[in-house]
């Protein structure tokens, strides 16, 4: 019994709870969008004050529908500023709320919104809905394995990053959008998205805008998202769906690990005439690392050393050195600055080895 669209809001006051539920249904032939639902909610809150309002029985996808005139709930939500949070999987958000780090007055659950859960390969590239869970992303890759390249196959570094997140339980609940918007410096999909030159489509009632992944992060847990703005989808451009990519991370232990440091590389080789890819130049390369700075860091100096060159051991060694110098790690409860600086060179070596198909490890 799956509802085609259900929109739930949770409204809490500090010392007493009022629940506010608005449920929307299919209009014949159409599906309400998240924004329309938000507008409907605004109507309930704005015009009727904070009255408790509950919909009637839910019956297989056909619900009471309330359509409102224009008026952006999101703007109303925007006026409340940081007190409104969008909830997808909740694996980070619920913890922050439980610990008192966040205290939103309004939580808007967008996890079931279908337009946020699509995975499509189109002319411009691969578009990933922000509310796709990590597990769904990994599962679709498994399903796409062996299918032609035009299918929605997902670049390796992103899969490796996604697979490194938490535990199966976290991956079945948490979403890629959540991992991105939580903007923890150690988020495992962040460096991969940056090296894949991903762009994020942000939507609000004012319209939508596209922000390159690299420009999205402002600091630990801080992004360019404005109040009331949602990350709608992530686009990996067709240019970066080819080439090779890889991701590595390391933590304190082997299972259920939080990254002490992670690194992603994407590169494209030039045309090769002869056998062996070792002797073809690197046409383009992008390198990014997480947990080595307040935001996931693009490592341009290391890239420069390797762009348009034929990679040989001395160059790779120099690039590893550049990676070590360019990062700005700190010591924290997870590990020391020294370890981050040392081990990133090793991770870089592994990851570049994988994308270059080198022998040994």
């Amino acid at each position: 019994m799956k509802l085609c669209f259900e929109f739930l809001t949770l409204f809490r006051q500090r010392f007493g709870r009022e629940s506010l539920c608005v449920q929307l249904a299919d209009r014949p032939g159409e599906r309400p969008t998240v924004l329309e639902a938000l507008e409907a909610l605004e109507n309930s809150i704005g015009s009727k004050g904070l009255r408790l309002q509950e919909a009637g029985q839910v019956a297989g996808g056909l619900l009471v529908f309330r359509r409102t005139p224009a008026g952006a709930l999101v703007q109303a939500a925007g006026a409340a500023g940081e007190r409104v949070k969008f909830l997808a999987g909740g694996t980070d958000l619920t913890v922050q709320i439980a610990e008192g780090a966040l205290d939103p007055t309004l939580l808007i659950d967008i996890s079931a919104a279908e337009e946020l859960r699509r995975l499509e390969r189109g002319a411009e590239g691969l578009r990933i809905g922000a509310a796709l869970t990590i597990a769904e992303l990994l599962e679709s890759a498994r399903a796409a394995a062996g299918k032609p390249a035009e299918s929605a196959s997902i670049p390796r570094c992103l899969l490796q990053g996604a697979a490194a997140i938490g535990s199966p339980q976290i991956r079945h609940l948490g979403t890629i959008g959540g991992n991105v918007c939580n903007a923890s410096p150690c988020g495992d999909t962040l460096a991969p998205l940056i090296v894949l030159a991903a762009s994020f489509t942000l939507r609000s009632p004012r319209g939508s805008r596209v922000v390159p992944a690299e420009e999205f992060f402002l600091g630990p847990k801080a992004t360019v998202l404005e109040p009331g703005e949602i990350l709608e989808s992530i686009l990996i451009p067709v240019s970066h769906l080819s080439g090779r990519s890889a991701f590595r991370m390391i933590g304190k232990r082997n299972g259920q690990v939080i990254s002490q440091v992670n690194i992603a590389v994407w590169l494209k080789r030039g045309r090769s005439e002869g056998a062996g890819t070792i002797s073809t130049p690197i046409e383009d390369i992008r390198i990014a690392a997480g947990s080595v700075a307040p935001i996931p860091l693009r490592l341009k100096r290391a890239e420069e050393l390797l762009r348009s060159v034929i990679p040989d051991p001395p160059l790779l060694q120099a690039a590893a050195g550049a990676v070590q110098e360019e990062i700005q790690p700190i010591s924290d409860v997870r590990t020391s600055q020294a370890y981050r600086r040392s081990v990133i060179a090793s991770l870089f070596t592994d990851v570049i080895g994988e994308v270059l198909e080198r022998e040994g490890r």
Partner: protein
Amino acid sequence: MLLEFELNGKQTRVEAEPTLRALDLLRDVLGLTGTKEGCGRGECGACTILLDGMPVNSCLLYAAKLQGRRVTTIEGLTAEDGTEDGAEDGTEDGAADGGGDHACQGDCPPLHPLQEAFLAEGAVQCGFCTPGMILSAKSLLDRNPDPDVGEIEEALSGNLCRCTGYGKIIKAVQRAAGDGIKAAREPGPGSGAGKSGRRQRGATR
């Protein structure tokens, strides 16, 4: 708000605060205390339940998210023959219960192969991690009946155990998988009175 969802195979309706944790809904409102709280932060897996067959941390789930979903807790595990309260006659053959080494403190419900395997392999010590561990394993075996060790490890990587050292847990999952495959390969719908798939209780090594 009124929540409606499928819980352990039955349609369930319950009134609850939408921001109540699913864990508390199960334990405090519905009285199903088999799901445990170990950390409240999604870091230990003791609170694992299956949501549409997939393992999730119920301490991270607001109850509202259960709406319309299929939820399985440890209480919902049944024996292979599908009955929840036990088969018609209590024993597989005359000798099994009386002479077997599997002694039960209380009345013994028919156990899921994973539950049998955990017992037989000594994969349970204090038992606090066990419900979550078994559900994660069940989710794995339901999708991948013949996992290798790496796949078992990956599936259980979100469930911490401090007592067993994990070795016997791996063996238990392998045993349950093996029994499942054997059962799947057995010819016919069971020999005699529909008891195919019933496991021999207990084991000695």
